[in-house]
């Protein structure tokens, strides 16, 4: 206790030095916390994009469908999967999948036709929220279609336009129908933008003579259950089916996330070095400047261990106090950036548009306990080390030398 009181008084004996040290530690801690929260925020945004749009957290298919995508490889008794999902507390949406040629006048495109349940899609993902123009499917068999934006461009088709769909139906005949475009989807994925057309499942049944075949069931617990666990539970409930989590379905996305994790560590390292340098150099210089003072204490009879203990206590006290202020500051700024986001467009528009492609430019932080604890540990550790090294050196010097040290 006496050591503590001692240390506290010592800190204020040279208030200016302490203030400089404290600001170095506080600024470093605050910037580190803010940066870590921003980096975690971009990571989270990528993960959410992967799952919330069209893929969901897990998907169920008939064995072999993913490789061949044949209309005949349907899920046996899909009701069983839907019931199992309800039992797990997850939302589920059934999709029927086929290929066909859509044409509008002289323009045509080979497309994937998805027969969807318009209501259920909104519960497993955010497809309905990504309409760039027009409306979502009406929820009845009315011959309506929603197109990806790239596909709409290829076909020159906007809401209100009529398209002819030609497909090879499940019974071997050529299916043929006129569809009216009601909406255009944008910003989901490159593949969906370019080649997916969504129709109601009942329309799909009629067009493909599909007899209610379901090829894909998308599951989502809205983040309540971890994706791997959800997939495992679904696998248990639906034996014999091919159940995969989004991590297994989107290996390229997982790679992106892995690379981003590494990049995050590299950026973090650069910041830790920059912030550590600030604390290290300031503290190192401050303690070296005190060599004559420490020599005086030694000359008065303090043991080397006593001197080191005193300096260490001072450094810890200063570090804890300043890192606390820095953490409060960092958490404050990060929380602000989590709620409001940082607009990178520089225009206050919230998005960036190049040649018709729009990207969301609001960068939101995501504050985790780790993003606060790690910086505090780093700055405290560096503070202590930067004080101990010169203190140990000074304590070993002959007091006479130390007193005359410049």
């Amino acid at each position: 206790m006496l050591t503590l009181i001692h240390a506290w008084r010592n800190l204020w004996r040279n208030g200016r030095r302490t203030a400089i040290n404290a600001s170095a530690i506080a600024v470093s801690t605050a910037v580190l916390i803010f940066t870590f929260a921003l980096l975690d925020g971009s990571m989270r945004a990528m993960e959410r994009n992967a799952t919330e749009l069209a893929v969901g957290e897990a998907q169920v298919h008939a064995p072999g469908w993913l490789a061949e995508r044949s209309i005949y490889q349907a899920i046996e008794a899909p009701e069983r999967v839907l019931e199992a999902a309800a039992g797990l507390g997850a939302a589920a949406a059934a999709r029927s999948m086929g290929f066909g040629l859509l044409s509008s006048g002289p323009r045509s495109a080979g497309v994937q036709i998805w027969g969807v349940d318009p209501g259920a899609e909104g519960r497993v993902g955010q497809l309905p929220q990504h309409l760039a123009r027009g409306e979502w499917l009406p929820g009845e068999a009315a011959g309506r279609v929603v197109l990806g934006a790239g596909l709409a461009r290829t076909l020159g088709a906007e809401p209100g336009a009529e398209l002819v769909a030609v497909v090879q139906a499940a019974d071997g005949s050529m299916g043929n129908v006129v569809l009216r475009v009601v909406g255009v989807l944008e910003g989901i994925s490159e593949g969906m933008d370019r080649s997916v057309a969504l129709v109601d499942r009942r329309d799909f049944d009629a067009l493909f003579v599909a007899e209610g075949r379901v090829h894909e069931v998308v599951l989502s617990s809205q983040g309540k259950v971890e994706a791997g666990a959800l997939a495992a539970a679904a696998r248990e409930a639906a034996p014999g089916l091919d159940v995969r989590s989004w991590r297994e379905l989107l290996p390229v996305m997982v790679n992106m996330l892995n690379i981003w994790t590494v990049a995050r560590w590299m950026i973090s390292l650069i910041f830790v070095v920059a912030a550590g340098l600030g604390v290290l150099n300031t503290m190192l210089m401050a303690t070296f400047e005190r060599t004559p003072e420490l020599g005086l204490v030694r000359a008065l009879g303090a043991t080397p261990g006593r001197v080191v203990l005193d300096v260490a206590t001072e450094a810890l006290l200063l570090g804890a106090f300043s890192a606390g202020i820095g953490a409060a500051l960092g958490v404050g700024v990060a929380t602000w950036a989590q709620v409001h986001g940082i607009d990178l467009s520089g225009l206050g528009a919230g998005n960036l548009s190049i040649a018709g492609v729009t990207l969301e430019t609001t960068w939101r932080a995501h504050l985790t306990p780790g993003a606060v604890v790690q910086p505090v540990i780093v700055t405290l550790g560096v503070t202590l080390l930067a004080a101990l090294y010169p203190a140990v050196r000074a304590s070993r010097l002959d007091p006479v030398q130390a007193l005359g040290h410049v």
Partner: protein
Amino acid sequence: MNAVLKLAWRSLWRNRRRTLITLTSIALGLALTIFMASLGAGVYRQASEGAVRMQAGHLVVEHPEFRHDPSPAHALAATEVVAAARGLPGVETVRPLVVGQAVVATAAGSVGVGVMGVEPEAEIGASPFPERVVLGRYLEEGDVRGAVVGTALARRLKLEPGKKAVLTTTDARGEMTSELLKVVGVFQTGSEESDVFLVQVPIGLARRAWGLPEGAASQVGVILGDPDDLPGVAAALSGRVDPGVAAVRTWREAIPKVAAWIELDTRANRLLRVFVIFLVGSTILNTILMSVLERGREFAVCLALGTPPRMLRAQVLAETLLLAALGTMAGAALGAAVSGWVQAHGIDLSLFLSREEGASGVTVGGFMISPVLRCWLTPEQVGAHTLLVFGLTVGIGLYPTWRSTAVPVADLLRTR
């Protein structure tokens, strides 16, 4: 002046440790910002180069309407454009392309695909596809019905070299047409989009399928030896092309997703660099401030002995200038050396990639980027950051310079 500099120089080395600590703050700070900037530039350059070469090229000449309505009817007579582009300095390759959408069918099923009709000899060395063939061979001159397809498409349609498939589409007049394809090779680019979606055929076959005349192309891609030549070549080419017949577009307009991603990430990187410079600035401020504060007694002695305050200020300022010059030189050298090493050797991140089939790469907006990070170092980056940190150091040094003569002389001389 000379005397002041000499005094400042000696004074710096009177307390070597203090000077070295301040110098490391400046040098490491500068080196970090240079490294961060060049790493960012390297990643964006790789991403754009990879995407550009998978698409038409750095510049695309196309029918003015093609961008909004990529229908086969919007093709252009390309012979003259190709000749004009080939004659320009800085141009590496000129690739006439016919692109369109079609359905490819085999007994195993039918799939909607993007078709790219190419001149095989123009592709080699210009686009990544020839070297990405994993089965069979790439297209050759003289192939009439040859086709190369992506691995994922090959798996789905049960295709391999030697197998046949039927390509069906509607031509420029709206008539259904079909062409027989003979697969000669299978490529794997690592980009899911290309491996699932793309079929390359000889340009003659594509012209037949869409009913286009000899010499027609939907796009003429121009690949440059050095992407920095883009503005010059774009201007030169625009001068030789009738704007009513064809539009010259840069890759930014042609693949806006990649351009937008790069723009956005560049801004994020710039923001982070501002944070690093802030940290560096605060470190420099703290060390310089502290060293001047600790020298109060020294200044007091000088002033008591009759040094004119102006002289003392000039000396402290000279010290700061020397520190800034030495620190930024060391920092620029260190930053350039580290970035140069990473540019030459790369940081291989493929260790962190999943080995699962079909996941051999990292993509941005559907285009593969290499998992080996490389810096791209330019004299401008080094110069700009060096000037910035030099200015920052000198600016920060002004306060201590002023402080040095504002010390309470008598008080400081009395105490230790």
